[in-house]
């Protein structure tokens, strides 16, 4: 019957569509860190964040553990405040950890490098909403050149 | 246009609105109908009155472009008149709600000029379509009904053909079978003879007659094929000038001395219905000035 063939064809069409979605979801997209997973938030204040953007990755030794979820100016002196959403899988950072704004390659995107601090009895672990005190700002090329010229002038 | 006045032998003039209470013998009663296309830009009917007797064949004739098809669409509720009432079995069609209108439409059907068969369905499925839509009959019963309807129009052998494979006459007969599938009380035929060869024309004339006499279906035939329709019609309305200008039985009309009726029945080129579309005089248009010596209107 013709309607049966039609239904079969439509069925295959839908299956191919769903397979395409699965392919895109599993093969092309980042599934290890999804926005839906369990996360917690950390905050850090920088002097200068350079080219950091929302959704820039937060990496520990090159491994993505989270993303920048919000950037605002905070406090009396308008310091950039970066909110980072970190996967719950990595929740054992001590409050001696440090963050710095780094650049991947010479021309690459900027990201946040998180270096875990030492752990002993006297330090506490970072919890949701905690601030990371030890921060290092982005290197701004103009500042570097300026410093270089200044130090040349002093010689 | 000459005005129609004076008594005409055997003819009821319809110029005055005749207000009568709905007669049980009239299936469709149209009173004081005003209708214009394009929000009043093109007036089609002005004070039209018509009564269609139950169980009879009524012919509506008139020159082309006079709005005969429009009249059928008004009865079917596809168009809404600006004024007046159209009563179908006592229900005023223009004022019905959408669902009531659809309920009434199940009691009538229309044979379109082109047949309007669904091109993606076979002849069988076309005729089964209204049954499947409006009844919960089982497939076996539907098949029986469809075969009976096809037998009535002589197309039982063509049930597996697609509409594209039918000749013009056959597709009109198939459409007729579909129109009677739900045993309607009223069938409206829109130019059923247009573009038919003499044989299929004869077949359709015979079918209209036999459906009317055997099933008692009220039939309204809109046409300008005078000779064919006069052989079967019980009642004839001639529509011109936005209203009914003459009505009566075929015999009465033939004896009429109304120039318009005679022009129409005899098929004369010019007369009360002018051969020329309204235009300024030829001389004025061609020569740019008016010549007074009766040269004006050709014909």
């Amino acid at each position, binding site marked *: 019957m013709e*309607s049966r063939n*039609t239904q079969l064809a439509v069925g295959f069409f839908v299956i191919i569509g769903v397979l395409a979605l699965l392919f895109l*979801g599993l093969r092309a*997209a980042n599934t290890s860190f*999804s*926005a839906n997973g369990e996360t917690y938030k950390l905050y850090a204040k920088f002097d200068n964040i350079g080219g950091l953007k929302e959704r820039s990755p937060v990496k520990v030794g090159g491994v993505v553990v989270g993303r920048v979820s919000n950037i605002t100016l905070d406090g009396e002196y308008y310091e950039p405040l970066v909110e980072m959403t970190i996967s719950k899988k990595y929740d054992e950072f001590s409050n001696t950890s440090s963050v710095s704004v780094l650049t991947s390659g010479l021309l690459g995107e900027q990201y946040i490098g998180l270096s875990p601090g030492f752990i002993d009895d006297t330090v506490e672990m970072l919890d949701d909403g905690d601030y990371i005190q030890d921060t290092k700002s982005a290197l701004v090329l103009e500042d570097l050149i300026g410093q270089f010229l200044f130090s040349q002038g002093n010689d | 246009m000459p005005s129609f006045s004076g008594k005409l032998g055997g003819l009821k003039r319809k110029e005055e609105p005749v207000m009568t209470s709905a007669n049980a013998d009239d299936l469709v009663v149209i009173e004081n109908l005003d209708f214009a296309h394009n929000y009043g830009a093109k007036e089609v009917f002005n004070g039209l009155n018509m009564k269609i007797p139950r169980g009879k064949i009524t012919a509506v004739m008139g020159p082309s472009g006079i709005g005969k098809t429009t009249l059928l669409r008004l009865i079917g509720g596809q168009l809404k008149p600006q004024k007046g009432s159209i009563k179908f079995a006592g229900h005023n069609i223009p004022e019905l709600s959408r669902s009531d209108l659809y309920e009434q439409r199940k009691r009538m059907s229309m044979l379109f000029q*082109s047949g309007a068969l669904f091109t993606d369905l076979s002849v069988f499925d076309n005729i089964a379509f209204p049954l499947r839509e409006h009844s919960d009959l089982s497939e076996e019963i539907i098949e029986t009904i469809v075969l009976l309807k096809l037998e009535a129009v002589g197309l039982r052998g063509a049930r597996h053909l697609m509409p594209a494979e039918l000749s013009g006459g056959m597709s009109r007969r198939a*459409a007729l079978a579909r129109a009677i599938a739900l045993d309607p009380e009223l069938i409206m035929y829109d130019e059923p003879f247009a573009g038919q060869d003499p044989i299929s024309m004869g077949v359709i004339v015979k079918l209209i007659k036999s459906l009317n006499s055997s099933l008692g279906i009220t039939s309204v035939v809109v046409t300008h094929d005078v000779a064919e329709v006069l052989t079967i019609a019980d009642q004839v309305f001639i529509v011109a000038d936005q209203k009914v200008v003459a009505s009566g039985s075929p015999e009465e009309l033939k004896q009429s001395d109304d120039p318009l009726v005679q022009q129409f029945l005899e098929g004369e080129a010019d007369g009360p219905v002018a051969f020329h579309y309204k235009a300024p005089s030829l001389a004025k248009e061609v020569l740019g000035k008016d010549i007074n010596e009766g040269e004006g209107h050709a014909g």
Partner: protein
Amino acid sequence: MLDKVAALGKTVLDNIAGAGKAMVMLVRALIGKPQLRKSWPLLMQQMYSVGVLSLIIIIISGLFIGMVLGLQGYKILVDFGAEQSLGPMVALSLLRELGPVVTALLFAGRAGSALTAEIGLMKATEQLSSLEMMAVDPLRRVISPRFWAGFYSMPLLALIFSAVGIYGGYLVGVRWLGVDEGAFWSVMQSNVEWGQDILNGIIKSLVFAFVVTWIALHKGYHCVPTSVGISRATTSTVVTASLAVLGLDFVLTALMFG
């Protein structure tokens, strides 16, 4: 001069009236209790003619567009020594833009024009009128299943387009030009995200599906039922739908990624 102003006014009024008619048509077609038993086979039939029959053109276009993206992207990226970024470049262009947009354009040309012509012809041959006279609402019977078929088919087609396109980019980039296979996929994975990229692409193509199918049905349903009228309506469907897709794409992109 005044004539021109009047003509402009008439055009504006006609367009507003047209939009109003289109709105009424859609609302009347979609509102009302669905009759699953009757509408399911109709939907299947339309999914077949709108979706399945568009599959070939979608797959072939997707493959070629992905391959071109792979080739062009490689030529540009290799100058910066960033050919590893070929994966995300191909995937993001397809998922965010080309998948939904090109699918919608092809759909307007392939299925939209067919819908308009079909409905226009049904109108010209009085099939729609005869449905009405048979007490069957043509909006529910003819318009509604076609609308839903278009609405469901296009996102599926867009997903297939993107998937095939990424595969095309992979064929050219990895198999032919020698980008490292592992880098191609892993860099892609670290840059493509469900919510941001795939989901937004699907939302885009749902919006396009709605608009393109609606325009096609409206142009057919309200066409002048003559051969000239139908051919004009068909052309108008492709032009209007394509422009609407491109314009809406800008708006949606600005909202989603702006």
